[in-house]
């Protein structure tokens, strides 16, 4: 930080790549701008009218080859930008499917609440270790926010009603800005904080200092009892509701014959609006709607708990596209 560099600090694996692409764009644009400026200036001086009696210049109406040249060449450069930008975009928005450090973030007017799997909580602060792929699951309690870390060159809108995922791999220890980038009301400009990137060892020390009230899964388990889920969803038994052991990441047969993979989005929907997709062999209208009854933070804790009931090896791994509602309706990519 400091100085008048045109680049923010590069603190993630992606940042260097993006700066390379940005520099490419800068060079191409600057060349084009210089060319146009030069030509306009040069023509203006060279072909200025020297006396009012100058004869009218001969018209030059058009030149098809010239038009083609200055259409095709810039378009060629644009195609490079398009291909390069698209490739990186897919990388930015597709988190690795295994070996990620999962952290859960909830945005609300006007703060970011962070929960770690170990139960640590923070507001407007995020701690991450270097060298590790970090996957954030984002939710919003109210309006659209946008989670933006310039030093990692990454941002994603947090639209209420959905989980959004977000990933990066920090490389450089330090403290970096965290911003909300989608206008969200009065204190939008203060809805930000700091991301602290630490060496893995320091990170472990930091983690061990902060946990209170048990891990996220334990907190989720408490909620599971508190909301009475446990009375119907009896573990390892066929109660009035399905057992949740080994559900996350597995295929679930629905009562209308479809099959879905139980991912975060499915669990979310099934908690908030249970009748949307009912497991085959179970009755509708047994479970109450939790829409509006449960906060996004609690929802995340419950989901982490349900995840913890699953055998981690069974989670979807790379190369196998996770299925969801849209894909199940018969439209597959």
């Amino acid at each position: 930080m400091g100085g008048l560099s045109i680049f923010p600090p590069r603190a993630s694996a992606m940042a260097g790549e993006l700066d390379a692409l940005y520099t490419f764009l800068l060079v191409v644009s600057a060349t084009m701008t210089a060319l146009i400026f030069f030509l306009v200036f040069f023509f203006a001086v060279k072909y200025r009218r020297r006396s009012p009696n100058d004869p009218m210049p001969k018209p030059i109406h058009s030149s098809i080859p010239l038009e083609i040249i200055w259409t095709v060449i810039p378009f060629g450069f644009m195609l490079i930008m398009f291909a390069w930008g698209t490739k990186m975009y897919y990388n930015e928005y597709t988190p690795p499917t295994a070996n990620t450090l999962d952290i859960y973030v909830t945005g609300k007017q006007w703060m970011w609440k962070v929960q770690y799997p170990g139960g640590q909580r923070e507001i407007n602060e995020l701690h991450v270790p270097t060298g590790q792929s970090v996957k954030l699951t984002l939710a919003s309690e109210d309006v659209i926010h946008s989670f933006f870390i310039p030093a990692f060159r990454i941002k994603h809108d947090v639209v209420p009603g959905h989980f959004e995922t977000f990933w990066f791999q920090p490389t450089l220890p330090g403290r970096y800005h965290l911003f909300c980038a989608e206008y969200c009301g009065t204190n939008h400009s203060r809805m930000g904080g700091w991301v602290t990137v630490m060496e893995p060892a320091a990170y472990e020390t930091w983690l061990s200092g902060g946990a209170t009230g048990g891990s996220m899964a334990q907190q989720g388990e408490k909620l599971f009892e508190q909301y009475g889920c446990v009375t119907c969803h009896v573990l390892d038994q066929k109660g009035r509701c399905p057992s949740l052991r080994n559900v996350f990441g597995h295929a679930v047969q629905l009562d209308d014959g479809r099959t879905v993979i139980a991912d975060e989005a499915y669990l979310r929907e099934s908690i908030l609006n249970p009748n949307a997709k009912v497991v085959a062999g179970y009755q509708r209208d047994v479970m109450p709607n939790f829409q509006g009854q449960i906060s996004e933070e609690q929802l995340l804790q419950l989901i982490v708990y349900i995840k913890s009931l699953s055998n981690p090896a069974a989670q979807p791994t790379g190369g196998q596209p996770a299925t969801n509602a849209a894909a199940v309706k018969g439209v597959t990519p």
Partner: protein
Amino acid sequence: MWVFLLTEIMFFGGMFGGYTVYRNMYPEAFASTSRFMEVTLGGINTAVLITSSFTMALAVRSAQIGKKRALITLLICTLVLGIVFLGIKYVEYHEKWVDHHIPGPGFHYDDPRYAQQAQILFYLYFAMTGMHALHMIVGAGLIVTLIVMAARNRFSKGWYTPVEIIGLYWHFVDIVWIFLFPLLYLIGHHP
């Protein structure tokens, strides 16, 4: 006039777009709510509107060949049919009111599974049919003007442009309904 109708197409296009998206998102809920739409009333209304379009087309034809009396009679027919349509629409709206199907704080839906989605559907139903009814009312006003103008001998074989333009407008409103009817009433309405 066609340029104006272009605008109108896009105006309704926005709502059709919204409808399509939600239908895609919540097909079951949409099927469930269209059970509450009165197909009989909707069907009668479709027929009424098509008939009015028919009389309108004949009215334009009468104007073309300069038959003043026929023109006025046909315009009055069109107007009456238009009013009948709005009357039936009123009956339907009233029914929704009684059933608490008006979106807002008083909204109530019997099937709790689809309460929220149903509210969105009814919202779209009212937005779309409401806009359509508004167009009908404007059209009825325009037809009244035409009748007055015709009675005052303002049209001739050589000049009947207003009749033609308002005719186009009326047909357009008819077309919108032709699409609204299956989308709102018929989808999922099988036993």
